[in-house]
């Protein structure tokens, strides 16, 4: 048998199996994490961004459709569910701390969430973005599964929203520490809460790396923002 044909056969088989894409998802993330460690855990390198860029390139080079990739990657994606549920544990463990800061949290939630949405709509509209793109931008600060649901409800493109959500998350995780230091915010609760509202799970993961209190407040912010935004959007779309 011709060895080139054999390689082609193996590849033709492998690219349709979930195993290959699952393996590549894990491997590229580990590569991303290795880069992150190499720069001494500076947020400038985002393991998600590294992994997603390498995978995107692989898909383009091999001409693999996203849904074939997702057959394998769905096992990782699925874990967002139990991971969301597991946020209950740090929340309950820090309940007294959260209760004491209830009023600042609610005020910050409303102000920050509204800023994220309206500033994005305003800029996109002024610069002449398409209607679909603007609708896809609206839920970008909410964690992926909620954001995709909202995007669909308001006439956006859920898969574009997913990309924007991750971009927002990575960006928030990169700039939160230098920005907060520069502006002189020293309260871990405020720093964590702000990054949780704007940058959901990726911001929360970053906050937990920096400080436990910041992480807990980020987790509360992310959960509250997800639930509140989902309800507000549902209410509005029923009124319209």
């Amino acid at each position, binding site marked *: 048998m011709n060895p080139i044909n054999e390689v082609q056969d193996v590849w033709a088989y492998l690219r349709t199996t979930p195993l290959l894409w699952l393996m590549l998802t894990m491997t590229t993330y580990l590569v991303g994490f290795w880069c992150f460690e190499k720069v001494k855990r500076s947020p400038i390198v985002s393991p998600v961004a590294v992994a997603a860029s390498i995978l995107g390139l692989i898909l383009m080079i091999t001409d693999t459709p996203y849904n074939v990739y997702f057959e394998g990657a769905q096992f990782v994606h699925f874990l967002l569910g139990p991971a969301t549920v597991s946020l209950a544990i740090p929340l309950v463990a820090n309940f007294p701390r959260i209760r004491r800061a209830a009023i600042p949290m609610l005020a910050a939630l409303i102000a920050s969430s509204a800023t994220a949405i309206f500033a994005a709509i305003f800029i996109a509209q002024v610069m002449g973005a398409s209607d679909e793109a603007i609708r896809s*931008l609206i839920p970008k600060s909410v964690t992926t599964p909620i954001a995709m649901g909202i995007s669909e409800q308001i006439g956006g493109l859920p898969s574009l929203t997913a990309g924007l959500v991750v971009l927002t998350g990575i960006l928030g995780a990169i700039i939160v520490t230098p920005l907060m230091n520069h502006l002189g915010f020293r309260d871990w609760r405020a720093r964590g809460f702000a990054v949780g509202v704007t940058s959901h799970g990726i911001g929360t993961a970053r906050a937990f790396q920096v400080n436990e209190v910041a992480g807990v407040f980020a987790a509360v912010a992310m959960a509250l923002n997800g639930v509140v935004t989902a309800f507000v959007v549902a209410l509005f779309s029923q009124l319209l």
Partner: protein
Amino acid sequence: MIEILKAVTFLLGFQLLGTTAVMGMGLPIPGPVAGLLFMIGWLGLNAPKPKLLKETAQALIAHLSLLFVPAAVGIVQHLDRLAYEGKILLAAVVVSTILALIVGALTFVMMVRLTGTPPEGQELRS
């Protein structure tokens, strides 16, 4: 090992409970978020829980960002769109995220002062 399995099953159980409740009541939130709320209620009542629940949850949360990779790769479906309005989307995301971070932290700190909320004694020292 069996304790980890129990913890994972426990988490999945709450996700299932949340999903069932959301479907049953037609709520606009995803099942896992409802599961999170149920879990808060359960733990708040000091009801029994698996021994390694805390450790299992920490393991999942520590690498939360891995779980976003599959969704992030989805952007490859929109390369045509990014070619003509990618810069606009990027500008909108960058500016709104910076503003939202500042507004969020500022509002929090101002409300802490206004309401006299006690500090947590863990503020960052310069």
